[in-house]
Structures are given as C-alpha cells and as structure tokens.
C-alpha cells in the first residue's frame, strides 16, 4: 500500500478547489511550492498577502491559494494590482502572470509598473508558449521553435524579460528555472522583502504544448535541456552573443534600492493633509 504524504503547504491552499487544472509535468506546482517556501523564509504574514493575476495557466495559481485573490482580465493584472496597492499600501500584493499575459498583451503595464517601482512582487512563469489556448507562440518563444501558429518555426525575436524589466526601472529583477528551486526560493524571498517592484521570471516546462511541438516529449527531457542550457549571469556577462544563443541566463538583473511609488503618494498626502492616505474609507459614512 502506498503511503500518502501530505504536502506541508496544504494549509495555505483552498482544499475545496482541488484537484487543480494543471497538466502532468507542468512546472506550476513546483513554483507554488517555491513561492510558499520563500514566503515562510521571508517571514511574511500569509494573511496579509493579496494576490492578483491575469489570464493563462499561471494566472490560475492564486485561485488555489487561501488568500484574497483577484483573477482579472488578460494582461491587465498589474494595473489592477497597482490600484489595489495604492488603495491599501499595507497589503503585500503578489502578482502571478505568464509570458503571454505579462509580455504580450500586458507589456505596456509591465514596463510602467517597473518604471514606477511600485511595491509588488511579480512571479512571471515563462513557458515560452500559450498553454491555455493550446500551444501558440508567445513573445518569449525562441527563434525557430514551433507552435500551432508557427508551423514553419517562429520568426520573431523573443523578449529577454528579466533584462527588460530591469531596464524599465524595477529595483529587483531575477531569472531562475524550475530546475534550480533553491535559487528560485531565495529570489522570491528577496523579491518579497524588497520594498519596490520585484520581478522574478521563472523559466518552466510546458510538456503538453511546448514539449510536444518541439520534440521534447517528457517533462524530464525538458528539464534536462533547460539544465544543460543554463548559464549563470556572472559567466554570461563574459560570453559573446553567439555563445549565448539558445542559453537561459539565470541570476539577478537588478537589485538596488530606489524610491517606491506608493510611499511617494503617501508623502504627498502627509504634506498636504497632515495624514497618511486613508485605508478602507469606502466603509465610512463621514470622512
């Protein structure tokens, strides 16, 4: 008889929503575990975390976690999260998004949220493909890779998300993969503690669509390829563009303190009204 071992993070989940919709071999489960481990390491109060997500497989994650969660429109999670954080800066707001959600339809919101350095922690799960709609290419699909909308190979040049977000002004940006869980946990922990815009890109496997379309038939085959192609940023900085072709550069792309957006709003409020920005004022009959 097999022994059922309960996942130690189960108390953080909405058990009445299980089983989840993720495919066998999907990286989302490992990333949820990494997030919850990072949250504990960062000594965060889980009850104070509010999650926001857009549309796509990765955006379904907050629906399984037992905290306030706003599952929004495609690409717009960061704009909803901006409003939520501005309305109540005491909340720890975490955004789960994917490569299509954050970098294609939501690209504008991504660079502007980074520019503002608003205190949000964004976990961007990058599987290089649109999983929920069935395997179309995304803005991070490698050149030459196959998808249902790239039957002859992708001709587009992919975004380098961690670098893009760092360039746009985020105070923390990092990239790791689902085969480097310990590094990922530490990066999410650092992102949660960083009082500014924190972006953690997680390169992950989608065996169902990316794998099937690109002759990587099993999750382990995908993980092996990912591991073989990983280059640490410190090494990558000394490599040529040609040497870096097809590589996944992992490490930190930004980690420096900058002025935070909602603190700036609060400072103006204190200066003009003598008080902090009001919280939960909608429930007051007199202000």
């Amino acid at each position, binding site marked *: 008889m097999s022994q059922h071992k309960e996942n130690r993070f189960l108390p953080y989940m909405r058990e009445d929503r299980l089983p989840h919709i993720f495919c066998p071999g999907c990286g989302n489960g490992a990333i949820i575990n990494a997030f919850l481990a990072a949250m504990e390491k960062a000594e965060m109060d889980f009850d104070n975390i509010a999650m926001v997500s857009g549309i796509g497989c990765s955006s379904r994650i907050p629906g399984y976690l037992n905290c306030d969660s*706003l599952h929004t429109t495609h690409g717009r999670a960061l704009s909803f999260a901006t409003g939520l*954080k501005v309305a*109540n800066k005491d909340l720890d707001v975490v955004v789960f998004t994917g490569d299509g959600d954050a970098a294609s339809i939501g690209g504008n*919101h991504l660079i502007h949220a980074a520019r503002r350095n608003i205190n949000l922690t964004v976990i961007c799960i990058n599987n290089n493909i649109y999983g929920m709609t069935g395997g179309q290419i995304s803005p991070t699909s490698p050149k030459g890779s196959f998808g249902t909308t790239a039957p002859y190979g992708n001709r587009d040049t992919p975004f380098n998300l961690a670098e893009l977000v760092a360039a746009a002004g985020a105070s923390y940006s990092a990239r790791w993969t689902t085969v480097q869980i310990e590094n990922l946990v530490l990066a999410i922990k650092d992102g949660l503690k960083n009082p500014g815009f924190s972006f953690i890109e997680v390169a992950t496997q989608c065996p169902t669509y990316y794998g099937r379309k690109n002759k990587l038939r099993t999750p382990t085959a995908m993980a092996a390829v990912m591991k073989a192609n990983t280059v640490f940023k410190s090494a990558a900085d000394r490599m040529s563009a040609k040497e870096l072709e097809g590589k996944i550069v992992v490490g930190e792309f930004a980690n420096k303190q900058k002025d935070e957006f909602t603190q700036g709003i609060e400072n103006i409020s204190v200066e003009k*009204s003598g008080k902090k920005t*009001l919280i939960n004022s*909608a429930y007051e*009959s007199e202000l």
Partner: protein
Amino acid sequence: MAQEFFIQGNEACAKGAIAAGCRFFAGYPITPSTEVAETLARELPKVGGSFVQMEDEIASAGAIIGGSWGGTKSMTATSGPGISLMQENIGYAFMSETPIVIVDVQRGSPSTAQPTMTSQSDMMQARWGSHGDYEPIALAPSSVQEFFDFTIKAFNLAEEFRVPVFVMADEIVGHMREKITVEDDIEIVPRKRPEKSDDYLPFENTENGTNPMPAFGDGFNIHVTGLTHDERGYPDTNNPETHQKLVQRICDKILNNKDKICSVKSQNCEDADMIIVSYGSPVRSVGEAVTKAREDGLKVGYIKIDTPWPFPDEQLLELASNAKDVLVVEMNLGQMYYEVDRVLGKGADVHLMGVIGGVMPTPDEIVEKIKEIGGN
C-alpha cells in the same frame, strides 16, 4: 451653511466625487474630460486620497477596480475613445460586482473625430459597450450643478448595487461655468461589510441580489474572477445553471430596483399633444423651446431623462401616454431615440431631431422642428 461656487463642470464633478467619499482616481489625459483629473490630482492629497496617472485607459479602469477591492471608493474620467479602451475591464466590473464610477465627458465621434466639440455619441457604448448581458446605471447631467449632484448620486448607486455607474456628461456641461450650491448635509452611502461566518458566501444568489462587499485584507480570503463563478466566487464555467443564476442576478438586482434608480423630470406634459424627450445639455434648449412654443399656443411639453440607463419605461409611459407626437432631441444620429420608440411608439409617432457636428440644437431650431411635425 450651504456654500456657493462659480466653477467649471469638470471641476464640479471632481468636487462631487470628493464629497461622495471618492479617495482614489486613476486616469489618462483626454479632452474634454482632463480637468476632472487635473482637479483631483490637486485636491485628493488634501483629503488623504490618492491620484495616479496611468499608462492608458485600460490600465485606468483596471486600477480603479483594484482600488475598489482595496476598500476605497474609486473613479476614472475619460471621453469616447477612452471608454472604448476600458470596455473589457468595465465588463469585468459588472461580472465581479465591483462598485466604480466612470465619468464620460462626451465629444464628437466616432474615432478621434472632434476632441473639443460636444456630442452624446456614447450612450449605447455605456449600455452595450462590453460583451455580454448586464444592466448598467447611467446618469446624464444637463448643468454644472447636476454634474456635481449626479457624481455624488453615481457613487451612492454604485455602492448600493455594487455596479459600475456612468456619468454621461458632454463637452458643454464639462466646460461651461455656472454657479453651484453645495449643501451641508450631503447624503453618502457607505459600503456594507459582510458579517464573518463559517457559511459566508460572497456571491450568494439572494433575492435582493446585492451582497455586502469585503475589502481585500479584511480576512475573508475571497476569490474574485471574471469567469462564471459559483456563490463562493470559485470558477464554474461549464455549468449552465451557475451561469444562468449569476448573470440573471446581476441583471435583476438593477431591473428589480428601477423604481429606486430611475429619475425623470417633466414640464407641461399634462395637456400636451407633443412631448419632447431629451437628456443632458440639449435639455437646456428644449426647455426654452417649449416655453416659446407655448407662447405660440402650441401644446408642447418635455421630459428630461436624468437616468438613461436603466431606461425609465414606466415614467415615460405615465407621462406621455396621451401625446400624439414624441420628439427625441439628442446629439447623435439616433441612440436613445430607439429606446423611446420602443416604449412610446405604439401610441404615438416618435420623431428624431439628431444633431451632430459638435453644436447644440438651439431653441429656435427645436421650435421649427416642433412646427414642422405639427404641420404634418
């Protein structure tokens, strides 16, 4: 003591928002609404509120929905092109039952058309602009005082029914200056928090239809989604019954309360052979035209619709059942006209005076139209 101000319509709207308890504005500059944002950028920090200029109108609509779930009364202001961009998120607000206020200072349309000129071309955008079945509330001010009053009313209705409310102003009302009176005892509707209990259902299909709304951080751990959701808020997208109950409830909570929401004003309708129906700034000319027509011995009255949505069928039927002719005056090529025709067309001939180009119909032009119809 009541205070008086001589101010611009857009400034009055901003003043009304603050009086109603709005403490978060997110928006994007667009003529002819920009002074609403500019005024709130200046005034909100003085009352502990927040102002954010977003990267576009899509983000503005998203931000105020997030702000509302953060526990703050939230608003945006824009014009036709901005409303077009906001529509997907507006639909999300209907589905997630998020109270927000959207001010539309209408300008010449379609497309970018006439940024500095007036129109009422977004009336159907407010009604049907997002995909799907839903019942919006829209208010149409015809003066600076009404722009102030209706903005307050919009926040109160948004909270009472947990629904997006549109204030459908136009360039004339937005940019003209008039005296307004601000009373001391303004009634504002605070949001209701649910009671904590083990069997709490945030999206319960209650008879009344509107549930109390917790803020994020209150400890309810609720899930909010634009997907079809059950009473717990959990996605349940393939069950016809879940969808039917949810969408029917979000429509019925408005339709079953039309008597509380709908508002019209009327003049000289009792003995009128012809009744003019109008809303927003053209009502100013309509009132003058009816006075002139009465001086010429014509039995004409008018109905001013304060709340184009939900459409006040019952009030129109009551006021206009004896009229032989009905004339709809609006600044588009016929939008609310079709609603009036639907309600009154069985008993009267319904005519349209649809004026576009960015100019308001004058009283004389309306009198001329009255006489032209009367001569037929």
